[in-house]
């Protein structure tokens, strides 16, 4: 099956607002519906090098997985006793499962508005009703405290290193480490990437107090 031109731009646009994993699953479902596993392989061959998370998720698809594994229980355990959670990065499937549970536990949730790509933040927040507040790099430290946690997305671990979004580097500094109770990395990919992790950065796993 020949895939339409411009699919890469469409994927990039979607991934900016839905997250690399969520966009990958969405594209894979649509492509597989039209052309089966052969089309999934074509998609991986065409876009996998540009979007390594898509490459990894396509591999999972071809191994038989059909949906992302989203388990919020360890996250909730790591956030126990917290009053505020700062989210760094977007993964629609994962945040849709996590945010209502955090709010249910009485934890205020804020989302850091920072991305290397164009994101319609108003629309992102509208998906959480009026229950998630927005913050940015100049003000997020106002959320700091002994009962505050930061949660960021991690894209696969390799040895002692993990891959994160560049936003994490903007947030994670020596001062911030001391200002928040926990720094939680949530592995949303759960498998190593085969190709060069473009769009992501490698950081030591020891940056996090919890890696789940």
């Amino acid at each position, binding site marked *: 099956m020949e*895939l*339409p*031109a*411009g*699919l890469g*731009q*469409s994927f990039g*646009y*979607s991934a900016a*607002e*839905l997250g690399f994993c*969520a*966009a990958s699953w*969405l*594209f894979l*479902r*649509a*492509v597989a*519906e*039209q*052309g089966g596993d052969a089309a999934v392989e074509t998609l991986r061959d065409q876009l996998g090098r540009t979007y390594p998370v898509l490459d990894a998720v396509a591999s999972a698809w071809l191994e038989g997985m059909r949906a992302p594994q989203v388990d919020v229980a360890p996250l909730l355990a790591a956030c126990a006793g917290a009053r505020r959670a700062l989210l760094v990065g977007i993964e*629609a499937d994962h945040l*849709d499962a996590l945010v209502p549970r955090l709010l249910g536990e009485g934890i205020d949730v804020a989302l850091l508005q920072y991305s290397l790509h*164009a994101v*319609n933040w108003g*629309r992102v927040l*509208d*998906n*959480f*009703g009026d229950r998630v507040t927005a913050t940015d790099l100049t003000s997020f430290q106002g959320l700091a405290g002994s009962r505050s946690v930061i949660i960021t997305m991690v894209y696969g671990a390799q040895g002692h290193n993990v891959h994160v979004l560049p936003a994490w580097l903007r947030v994670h500094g020596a001062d911030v480490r001391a200002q928040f109770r926990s720094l939680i990395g949530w592995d949303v990919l759960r498998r190593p990437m085969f190709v060069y992790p473009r769009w992501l950065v490698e950081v030591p796993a020891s940056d996090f107090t919890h890696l789940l």
Partner: protein
Amino acid sequence: MSGAQLLLTALLIAALLGQALVPTLRVLLVIAGAGLSCFAATLLGVGTTGQIFAEIPWDVLILLVGLGLLSEVLVASRLFGVLALLASRRSRGEPRRVILWFALAMYVVSGLVNNLTALFLVLPVLLALLQLLGADQRYVSWTLGVVLIACNLGGAATPIGDFPALLLLGSGAMEFPRYLAHAAPPTALALGLLLVVVLLLVRPERALARTPLTAQLSQAVMQALHRNVRLDRRLVIPTLGVLGVMVLAWVAVPARSGVSAELIGWLGVAVVLSLRARLGERLLRTRVDVEAVLFLLALFVMVGAVRRTGLFGEVARLLTALPVAPLWQLLAFLLLAGLLTGMFSAGPSMAATLEVAHALAHRLPATAVYVGLALSVCAGSSLFLTAATSGPMAQALTERAGLQDHGGRPLRFGFLNFLPVGLTGFVIIQGVAMLYALLLVLAAPS
């Protein structure tokens, strides 16, 4: 022309040209021009600043601010995002249906609320869809162009849709129901003609590679981007209810009662803002369109100063003294109004030409003159990308969205990209305006 007429007209034209040539300084330029006009008018004995300010149509500014705030309440209810998603769903990822549904949606919305606000919220959804459809430059230019013109037509369809109609309503030239009954049909006709020409003759989508996968993906992604976006019914239902009551009052309450259009608008918006008091207070403090208010205030001052010199009256006398039938005078006036709007935008040209329209309305059916003028101003607003505020805003939003074609080339929406669409729209709307005015004149009892 007297010295006062020359100087004050030169100041007005210089300010208008300046704001058209340097749009980034447009408010500063017209505010400075208004200050100089007041100064010159005082020195030349034309009138004091107090006298000029006393003639400003404050009712129009009140309605403009009030309806802008009403739009902001609807923004807070997420109405526009949901409408955009509905238009996106209705289009089913089919490029021609995208043009059709987004144009229809913007036409309807622009008739009721501030089209700039609506456009600001709907365009990102449309731009996302264009990216997902793998649009090329031609398709982007025509789609965005048609949507902009649909906004202008929607704004001209009702007395509360846009500034020119508000000015007619505020000046007492036309009453709400009469304007609505006479302006809505020709604007709908113009939109229909535009869509027929674009979808059947121009066919901007013909070079797009359409596959079932593209259509499916565009729908799936749009759904995912808005997966949990819900309409705030507790806000939107009472707001639309109050808007409905306001429209009823505008239609039913006679002008002689003293309960004027702007008073109805003022009270209605106060009720809407009180529905959620904290939101209302925040909107009042932060979301009043100060730029538009200052711009129009400065225009009214400059036009008011020129009016006090008697120039507009002389122009009207010259026009009515032309050695042709009044009908031809009207058609020439409408064409001139359209072209002036294309150059100077709707606010200035409407404010300047209304005086002449009043003179023509003494000799011809008032409805033909005023509705023809509103439609001609709408045609002029659609001529160039810079003729209406929505154009540069759409340009900026498109650049910010970073659209690219299949080859990775950036897709733009600039002056030249819009020009073919604008010319098509101008010819259609101006043609409808003149034809409609002609029919009204011919149908009127002699």
